[in-house]
């Protein structure tokens, strides 16, 4: 086992941990300010944003003049109403499949009282000074932007009403707006007709404009189809990998397969002679997995020429400081450690667990194990970069367009004002593209050539160089009393570390997480095993793995107590209250009841069928799920149906929210069923989808989604819908065949689909 601690790994992992913290933080982003820009800064903004895209962008009356006085109305950077009544809304954040390019404009349109069919949507330029947060992670897009976007729309509505009121010489308070129209009695004025008058008015303070009540919503909560659907189904060039520029070449970049290896030498001369190859060179990099690891770049005329040349590349790697991680060794060591009731560090010690276990009517002990997994977005990592005129310009499928400015500048040794980023559509994120390593690589290659380059990773590289969801081991003992009540819970969590002190990114389990604060006796401790393999946030970081452990073990205890799982779970939730960390036990109980009711909990099922229940709170979302499976005598699993019940506050786009839940069920099942990343001697053993078998259409269940729409602040659902999937299915497997799943993936326990 490789127990050495690497300094660069440490700082990188610290950055990644902060990233998860930042993505999950409930702090609302900087309050929206009406951006009043003078002529110079306006021109600077338009320059930054790439000419035509925001030409005509108006920031108050000064800027209307700057925009050429076309009579359009644009009180802030988010929207523009032309005289013909067309409404252009800029979606500020990255579209990664979570539906934000439709949801963000809907929020603005709701407060603007726009007619949705009048709205056209474009991707906003990357400029966090104007737009605020321009990242997609932690399911924070909706909650962090909710107020900002509502106010952006409400400012415009208030000004349009003021313009109409002035024209009709009536009090603004007597006018109302709907369907892109201001109304007073029998008089109506279309937004387009009011645009130039509204543009001449002072922009009100966004903090003071009146927002609608949920019951006044006309748009939100209904079913909308994605604004880019037509472009997607007709094959338009939307994605990072689709970008082309005049004179552009294609680059591949070979890193050392084991993290931390350096280039000693490579057959560069031979590579340069290959057909279609333009250049080949070594990049030293800065040794940060999140930025630029050492490697060899090959620049070629076509992707195929570059890929073929890579196959012929021979690099002599200096692996003296490279990862030697072995999943086999780590697992063996963890199994030994699991025999100890407590780990080296105690994180929570509530009540007296030892006493509780001693005095229990029944105790249950179990070791739960889950593997490393990869993000594997279907679009492999790629980025187009062009170093020209003193700047480096990027076309990047990133989840963190805002942070990427600083990251790329730091990695390339330039100042942030010399970095210009265009955000493309992203072919899947799942947390992988919170890191911008591929972007830094593209930038470093671009700095060495005189033309634009598109860096394209192969699938093999994408699987080899991920920031994996860490595996883990939980040694658990729990107890119930004679009345069948849960009395004690002890968890020794064996997890990983990069710095020898704190768990690796995404590999921790905080003390305040369920069921820690709901039990009279609870002990959580951990032991850390050093690794070098990069880990990072994966769809619902930590919850994506630990929820399976907790919700499965709760079921084990319910069974030991001879109790109905639903009743047992509700009893553990207890009285409605809000626990530290945000779990609202009342909202939890409501979704648990709803999921059970919709699934027909307790009804008689066909032989070989079973139903399983699980609840998890994460990313401010309360989600319960009930799965129905059947298992045949050959341990073949059929997942028939999953009922999702969620409370994520008000829903913005019902189609989008449903789609996220449907996708989360597939992702959860796919991952628990057969996905596993292993490493030996620092090398990732899985190379392509034949060894990383994502679920296919034939195995997918019927998914039903039900929301409790509350007045609680809204949150995204891309992440919170995932954690309950695996435990609901595992509990259903137990109900169907009596086999308790304690090791993932399920193929390890002999199951197939």
């Amino acid at each position, binding site marked *: 086992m490789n127990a050495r601690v690497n300094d660069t790994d440490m700082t990188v992992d610290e950055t990644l941990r902060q990233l998860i913290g930042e993505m999950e933080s409930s702090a609302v982003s900087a309050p929206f300010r009406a951006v009043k820009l003078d002529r110079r800064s306006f021109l600077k903004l338009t320059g930054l944003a790439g000419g035509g895209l925001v030409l005509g962008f108006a920031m108050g009356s000064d800027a209307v003049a700057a925009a050429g006085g076309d009579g359009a109305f644009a009180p802030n950077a988010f929207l523009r109403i032309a005289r013909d009544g067309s409404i252009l809304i800029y979606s500020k954040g990255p579209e990664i499949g979570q539906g934000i390019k439709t949801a963000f404009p809907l929020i603005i349109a709701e407060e603007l009282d726009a007619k949705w069919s009048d709205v056209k949507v474009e991707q906003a330029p990357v400029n966090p000074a104007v737009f605020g947060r321009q990242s997609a992670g932690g399911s924070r897009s909706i909650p962090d932007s909710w107020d900002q976007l509502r106010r952006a729309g409400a400012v415009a509505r208030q000004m349009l009403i003021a313009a109409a009121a002035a024209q009709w010489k009536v009090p603004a308070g007597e006018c109302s707006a709907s369907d892109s129209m201001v109304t007073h009695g029998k008089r109506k004025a279309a937004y387009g007709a009011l645009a130039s008058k509204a543009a001449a008015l002072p922009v009100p303070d966004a903090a003071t404009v009146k927002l609608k009540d949920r019951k006044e919503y006309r748009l939100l909560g209904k079913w909308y*189809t994605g604004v880019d659907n037509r472009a997607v189904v007709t*094959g338009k060039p939307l994605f990072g990998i689709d970008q082309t520029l005049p004179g552009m070449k294609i680059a591949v970049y070979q890193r050392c397969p084991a993290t931390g290896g350096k280039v000693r030498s490579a057959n560069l001369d031979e590579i340069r002679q290959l057909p279609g190859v333009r250049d080949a060179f070594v990049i030293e990099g800065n040794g940060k997995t999140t930025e630029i690891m050492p490697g060899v770049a090959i620049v070629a005329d*076509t992707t*195929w020429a570059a890929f073929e040349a890579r196959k012929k590349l021979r690099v002599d790697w200096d692996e003296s400081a490279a990862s030697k991680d072995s999943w086999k060794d780590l697992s063996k060591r963890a199994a030994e450690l699991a025999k100890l009731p407590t780990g080296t560090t105690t994180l929570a010690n509530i009540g007296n667990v030892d006493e509780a276990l001693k005095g229990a009517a029944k105790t249950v002990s179990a070791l739960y194990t889950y593997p490393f997994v990869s993000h594997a977005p279907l679009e*492999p990592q790629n980025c187009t970069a062009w170093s020209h005129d003193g700047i480096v310009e990027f076309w990047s499928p990133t989840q963190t367009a805002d942070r990427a400015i600083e990251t790329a500048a730091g990695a390339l040794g330039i100042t942030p004002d010399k970095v210009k980023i265009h955000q493309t559509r992203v072919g899947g994120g799942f947390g992988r593209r919170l890191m911008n390593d591929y972007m830094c690589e593209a930038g470093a290659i671009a700095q060495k050539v005189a033309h634009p380059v598109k860096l394209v990773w192969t699938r093999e590289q994408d699987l080899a160089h991920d920031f994996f969801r860490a595996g883990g081991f939980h040694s658990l003992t729990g107890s119930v009393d004679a009345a069948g009540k849960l009395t004690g819970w002890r968890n020794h969590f064996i997890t990983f570390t990069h710095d020898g002190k704190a768990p690796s990114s995404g590999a921790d389990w905080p003390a305040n997480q369920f069921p820690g604060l709901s039990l009279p006796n609870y002990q959580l401790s951990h032991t850390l095993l050093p690794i070098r393999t990069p880990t990072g946030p994966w769809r619902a970081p930590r919850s994506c793995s630990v929820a399976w452990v907790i919700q499965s073990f709760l079921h084990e205890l319910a069974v030991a107590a001879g109790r109905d799982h639903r009743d047992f779970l509700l009893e553990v939730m207890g009285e409605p209250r809000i626990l530290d960390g945000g779990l609202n036990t009342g909202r939890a109980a409501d979704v648990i009841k709803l999921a059970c009711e919709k699934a027909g909990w307790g009804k008689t099922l066909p032989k070989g069928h079973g139903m399983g229940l699980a609840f998890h709170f994460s990313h401010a979302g309360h989600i319960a799920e009930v799965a129905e499976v059947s298992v045949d005598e050959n341990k073949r699993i059929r997942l028939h149906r999953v009922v999702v019940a969620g409370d994520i506050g008000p829903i913005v786009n019902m189609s989008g929210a449903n789609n996220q839940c449907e996708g989360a069920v597939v992702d959860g099942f796919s991952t628990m069923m057969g996905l596993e990343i292993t490493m030996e001697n620092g090398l990732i053993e899985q190379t392509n989808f034949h060894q990383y078998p994502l679920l*296919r259409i034939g195995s997918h269940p019927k998914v039903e989604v039900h929301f409790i729409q509350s007045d609680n602040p809204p949150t995204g659902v891309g992440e919170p819908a995932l954690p309950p999937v695996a435990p609901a299915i595992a509990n259903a497997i137990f109900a169907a065949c009596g086999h308790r799943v304690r090791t993932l993936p399920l193929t390890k326990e002999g199951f197939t689909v």
Partner: protein
Amino acid sequence: MASIQLRVNGKSVTADVDPATPLLWVLRDSLGLVGTKFGCGMALCGACTVLVDGKPIRACTTPVSGVTGQAITTIEGLAPSTEKLHPLQQAWIDHDVPQCGYCQAGQLMSASALLASNPKPTDADIDAAMAGNICRCGTYQRVRAAIHSAADTLARRKA
């Protein structure tokens, strides 16, 4: 390098490429048809699916020299005209199938081959025909529903 003649989306085109180049890269890099996607390069994910003489094939592992003279249809050529979409494309929009959208060109091409040979597919037919297409985002439920509804549209048109 060789000058290769192809028939793509009803048009004759020429590409100067190594004959061993997979069709995928000829489409994307030489012809600028980037709707066909790269996902795995090993015929495992279906992102690169195109039709050759009406049959779905994986363009990432099909050398371009093997498809000269045959009719190649890509996602850019699925719609009968710029104004009129294929019923599958319309159904995909109406059912709001895409999440990230990256797999969807491949899904649509496989689905179009299915409907061409089987106008009223069952769920099992769909599962069999679409088994080669991975959707990492998990849009399978909607893919199925959209195929059924496109099949209904086509049946109504014939009636």
